[in-house]
């Protein structure tokens, strides 16, 4: 089922804290995320300031591999938003980082929806990695490793626009 309208990507700003809190506080959305759900907009703001903004500007090294992760607010599930965002992100980073060869992503073995997102976005399933991550202090989880290697085939073109 195709999403109506289109999905675009842009960099975060501090002003996005309230919006980020919307999904970062939702236990259903962060279920398979390592860190706990946020409960206050200040946590979201700190995350953007301390983690997201510096991360976006770190271009020191030129690693051949990178890893991708994504969260979508619950209200927008089931309409292909994540798949289109992942496709757009993959296309953007392969274009912006000529040194990038491998983009990888993991999905919990009990998260088939996320596994489908990656498959539909053209990632290749490589295998199950046992006891790979600890979620919120609970017992460790098995995950499925996926990758998209430069030259794997066309990333689905837009309906998506990327602007900074």
């Amino acid at each position: 089922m195709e999403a109506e309208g289109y999905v675009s990507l842009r960099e975060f700003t501090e002003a996005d804290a309230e919006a980020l809190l919307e999904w970062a506080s939702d236990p259903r959305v962060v279920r398979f995320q390592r860190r706990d759900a946020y409960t206050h907009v200040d946590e979201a703001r700190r995350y953007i300031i301390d983690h997201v903004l510096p991360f976006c500007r770190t271009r020191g090294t030129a690693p051949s591999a990178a890893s991708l992760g994504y969260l979508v607010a619950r209200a927008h599930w089931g309409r292909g938003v994540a798949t289109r965002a992942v496709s757009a992100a993959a296309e953007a980073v392969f274009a912006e980082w000529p040194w990038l060869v491998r983009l990888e992503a993991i999905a919990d073995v009990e998260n088939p929806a996320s596994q489908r997102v990656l498959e539909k976005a053209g990632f290749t399933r490589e295998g199950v990695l046992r006891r790979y991550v600890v979620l919120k202090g609970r017992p460790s989880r098995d995950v499925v490793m996926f990758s998209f290697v430069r030259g794997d085939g066309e990333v689905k073109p837009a309906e998506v626009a990327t602007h900074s």
Partner: protein
Amino acid sequence: MNTVTLRRFDLADADAMMSWASDPVVTAFLNREPYEPVEPIAFIRDTVLPHPWFRAICLAGDGPVGEVSVTPTEDRCRAELGITLARAHWGMGVATAALKRVLATVYADLDGVERVEALVDVDNAAARRALEKAGFQQEAVMRSYCVVKGLLRDMVIYSFISTDPLVERTMHVSLSS
């Protein structure tokens, strides 16, 4: 075959470390990057001694013939193994024996670690055999995982989970179950 044991390093092992650290042909069995020759005293002092789990591989009480390390990652349950063996001791089951010793002891030493993983080049048949004989399970081939000497390499990822059964030591016949 001599018994393989593991012990902690000390600075007095610097000379012995030269037997594998100074050999330009020796590349680390399982490390992603090509093995960088280092000045052994500084390496032992600055990297080995503060490391959470770093051991010398010894044969029958002689000096070290290699090194093995298990390094916790950002995920507390997961640690990465690296092993290097002097070339004179390849092909005799020393690595396999060392790996078995690691698996028998490391989970008790590293709190929270449930998974020891090893990344090895797809073409490194000897290292893959050693891991498999020691009981590691192959999980995936990770495509174009890293650059080694200017070439993209596929790496195989193996793991041993703390609850996996330890492989029996082959030199030992036990009559009890």
